């Protein structure tokens, strides 16, 4: 998984399966946030299981509480969208509407 600090927002591109093996990455991620807007790109993310959902929820809560940042999600597949709807992820982070997912502003 890569992280690229943006000019006005933080940008994290997630890759591959998100599951228990991703725990270390998501535990450390909130400390890397510097801006009040954080964008997560799921275009290269694959399967996200229930443990992956738990890690995302914990990470997003930390970012919102400690950094007071808004979280946007882009590149979501229909499967990601359905999973996030049914597990409450969208209560913490908003999907970027189609056509508004440009990466402008990145450093």
């Amino acid at each position, binding site marked *: 998984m890569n992280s690229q600090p943006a000019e006005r927002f933080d940008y994290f591109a997630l890759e591959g399966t998100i599951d228990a093996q991703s725990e270390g990455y998501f535990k450390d991620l909130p400390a890397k946030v510097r801006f009040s807007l954080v964008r997560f790109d799921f275009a290269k993310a694959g*399967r996200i299981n229930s443990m992956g959902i738990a*890690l995302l929820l914990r990470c997003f809560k930390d970012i919102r509480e400690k950094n007071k940042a808004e979280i946007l999600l882009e590149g979501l597949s229909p499967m990601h969208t359905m999973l996030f709807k049914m597990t*409450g992820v969208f209560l913490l982070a908003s999907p970027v509407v189609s056509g508004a997912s440009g990466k402008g502003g990145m450093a």
Partner: protein
Amino acid sequence: MRRMQTVAVLYKDEKDKKLWETTLKGIPGLLSITVNSNLTVSLERLRRVATSLRLVILSARLYPGENPELVARIRNLCPGSELLVISSSGEPSPQLMPLFVDNVRNLAIGTPEGGRSDSEYLPAIVSMLVDRSPWEIGSCLREGTPIHSFQLDSTEDKESLIEALEVVLSGDGEEYELLRQKGALLADELLENAMYDAPRGTQGDKLFKKGKKRDMLPQERIVFSFGFDGETLALKLTDSWGSLEPDVVMEYLARNQDDGSIADDAGGRGLFIIWRFLEQFHVNIQPGQETVVGGHLHLSSGLDLEAPHGFHITAH
């Protein structure tokens, strides 16, 4: 000779009866009761055959919404009967919390027109409940469909099993791609549940942390099975722990349905996801011996979050 009535179905009214009667008409020993606002008379009819009844079917138009006390009254009349709630796929999913509170562990979803799959599926479910027999993976597949079974040696086997499933689901187009993604997620959740949630110590504590690599214990048996007949995918995971409890499964489904919980440690999220992605979800538990979790979904199932889904949670 008059056949003994072993199954009773309670409809709300004539319109409700018409919705289901084609699908249910082939069930042997079926007593149909149309309540028509007169529950007392209907329950008296039920009482007369109570001793022979093995299963009482309730339309979701009657329970839990309009008659939340109905299950308690039926249990009082027919303590030996199993209960099955039937709900139309065209109507909102019944709220699960009342079913959890009433210990109703069977919910079947049918199409309003009583389609081909219902005409086969619902009688099979009724037969399973009347006979108190466990769900079989082949029951929802075309005859002759090969069932692929793999016994795990290590948690490292998970990804290769998911790949084997994806190979069986090879095909072009969006429907196949979605089925492969759903199948992979279902396999992941089923396997994780068996590898990390099922193993318990004598005090009920979890033996292994999720994500920790391990070999199966000498006496431990985890078998993953699946079959695909070109339209229906059936999956089944058997573990030799038998540690899952029916009440706990129902509580997980009901609480996750109610909350849309954002608690990162919400219990049973994996089972909730399995239920939501399967058309029918089956759990069969032999306490301390074996747990079977599985079900089926269709190539054409799609991704409708609001679509109701059934379940059958049994313990023997």
